[in-house]
């Protein structure tokens, strides 16, 4: 990247298929032995220095246009690499740092508090085995989802009391939908 004018540091964060943060990387100063070679505005080849003969380490990338633009300068792009589809949030690093500080100031709420159990695959609720107010053990079966013809049992990740059951048998659910609130 020698001789190139560079902008401010950038934080890139990937999002998994369930919409959760997955990994992040701050691209700031410093050299990398990886080189990106653009072929057109969407296609690139990422690999070690050209003509080094290490052709088998090359990755062919497709970087799609912006899919979503969030408030506060956050942009989401789709990257295809080695067969994977990666949604990447891109943000100037200084802004990302500000955002993180703001978040740390807010009430944490994850330890000991209620646990929202969400659908990790789209499908249909076949059977509900608990109701609001039930006490459940860790590993106890909560409900059964049919997805793509397979019946999938959902079990409680920890013991607790069922605060709310947000779905009924027969309901269709989408990825990320709230199913059960465990208190």
């Amino acid at each position, binding site marked *: 990247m020698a001789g*190139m004018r560079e902008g*401010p540091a950038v934080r890139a964060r990937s999002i998994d298929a369930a919409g959760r943060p997955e990994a992040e990387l701050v691209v700031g100063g410093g050299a990398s032995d990886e080189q990106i070679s653009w072929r057109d505005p969407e296609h690139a080849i*990422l690999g070690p220095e050209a003509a080094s003969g290490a052709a088998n380490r090359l990755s062919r990338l497709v*970087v799609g246009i912006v899919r979503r633009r969030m408030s506060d300068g956050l942009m989401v792009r789709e*990257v295809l*690499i080695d067969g994977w589809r990666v949604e990447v949030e891109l943000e100037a690093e200084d802004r990302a740092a500000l955002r993180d500080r703001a978040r740390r100031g807010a009430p944490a709420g994850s330890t000991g508090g209620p646990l929202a159990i969400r659908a990790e695959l789209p*499908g249909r609720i076949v059977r509900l085995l608990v109701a609001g107010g039930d006490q459940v053990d860790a590993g106890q079966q909560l409900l059964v989802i049919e*997805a793509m013809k397979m019946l999938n049992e959902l079990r409680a990740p920890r013991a607790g009391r069922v605060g709310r059951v947000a779905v009924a048998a027969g309901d269709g659910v989408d990825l990320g939908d709230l199913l059960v609130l465990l208190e």
Partner: protein
Amino acid sequence: MLVANRGEIAVRIIRACHELGIESVAVYSDADRHARHVRAADVAVRIGPAPAGESYLSAEAIIAAAQATGAEAIHPGYGFLAERATFAAAVESAGLVFVGPDSTAIAAMGDKLAARRLARSVDVPVVPGTLEPAPASDPAGVAAITAAAESLGFPLMVKAAAGGGGRGMRRVPAADELRGALVAASEEALAAFGDGAVYLEREIRPARHIEVQLLGEAGGRVIAIGERDCSIQRRHQKLVEESPAPGLTTRQRLDVHAMAVRIATAAGLTNAATAEFLLDEAGAFWFLEVNSRLQVEHGITELVTGLDLVHEQLWLASGARLSAAALAAAERAGQPVGHAIEVRISLEDPARSFLPLSGRVGRFSLAAGPGIRVDAGIEAGDRVPAEYDSLVAKLMVHAADRPTAIDRLRRALDESEIGGVQTTLPFHWFVAASPDFRAGRLSTDFVDEHWDGPAARATAVSRALLAVGLAARSENPSRGAEGPSRSTDAAAESPWLAAARAEGVDRWPG
């Protein structure tokens, strides 16, 4: 001819119809109103709402559609009604031609227990297990089945008598889980196939999955035209298939072909079917079941033999004898020439146990060029409904030998770009680069033993983050061997600038 299916197999059958000058009728549920198989057909008929039980599994709606359009024959594809003998019989009694084995043969082969008994009767080794239905809900029979299980030994498999595609199947590691597995498998089988009967089989492990492609004519003559290795599976569903099966001796090949022909002949099989076997470490074959229909992976046999199996099916269904080309292929089947590999591209997340996904596929650009065949059921921009199978395309490669076919597969996967929804492509990448795969060390445990999806994704994610991070930082992303002076087109120079312009903003993130 009416095609009672959807997705890639409906498109593939419609193509064969058009090649033979046969008018094609597609059927569709509301979820598939604009699906690719509907666009491909000459006539399209709605058969019901999205749930398969009310559309693609409705024999009445499908036969009514055939009669309304004047279709004379029905091709069931695979899945859905393909192996329901009652459907085949209903088609036959409606005066239509069922493109597949006749209903008697489907009944004989479709009940896995009956098929096991038949195989034993013609001296084909069957996987040890029970030969009668195991009681799933009847408490009286539980003691007997537990005793049978103990004598087989654990772990063992509970399987649906009407099963297929891994549905209604459970692995039972120990005796105390037998009862629950029987109930769960039976329930799943009832939902999927309308038949809750299950049985027990010893687990043969490690094993390879080998299957033999069969063709049969009305007079009772059955031939084997080659075998496939389909060992690489997840959830007992195939991910990668190849033909011929690597590493077999000609003797082994001919033996397993002969076993398959014996069973199919005894069952009175006609048209096209496949006999499935396990191959254990000692080199012995164990009969599993017969699928009395076209398989998903029939295309690799087509590449190796030069036959078109749907053409052959249509000729056989019209009452013709086995074609000269098919007989010639059977002659060569012991010493096949060339090699073909198929990978199944499904909407699934290989980093999360191949969880099925659905949604709108964006970019959809698969490989082309020498030795490539693509059978796809969708096009770029199509929405894939959650209601049906997650398979969207089959990518096949063909070359003079297995190493070249693997090289070609790597090249083809390199070219393939699918956006919008995650697919199984990363796993296929891994297989194509795997030394174990190249060495032919295949087993049904391949995925469990070799695939670390989260780790593979982590590597790709870190490269993706680095790449877009580098590009976003630099106003002039590096252009490989090109000098910075060559370009006069600013939009072309920076993909970020180009994208920003397209979106009507000046620059990001500066």
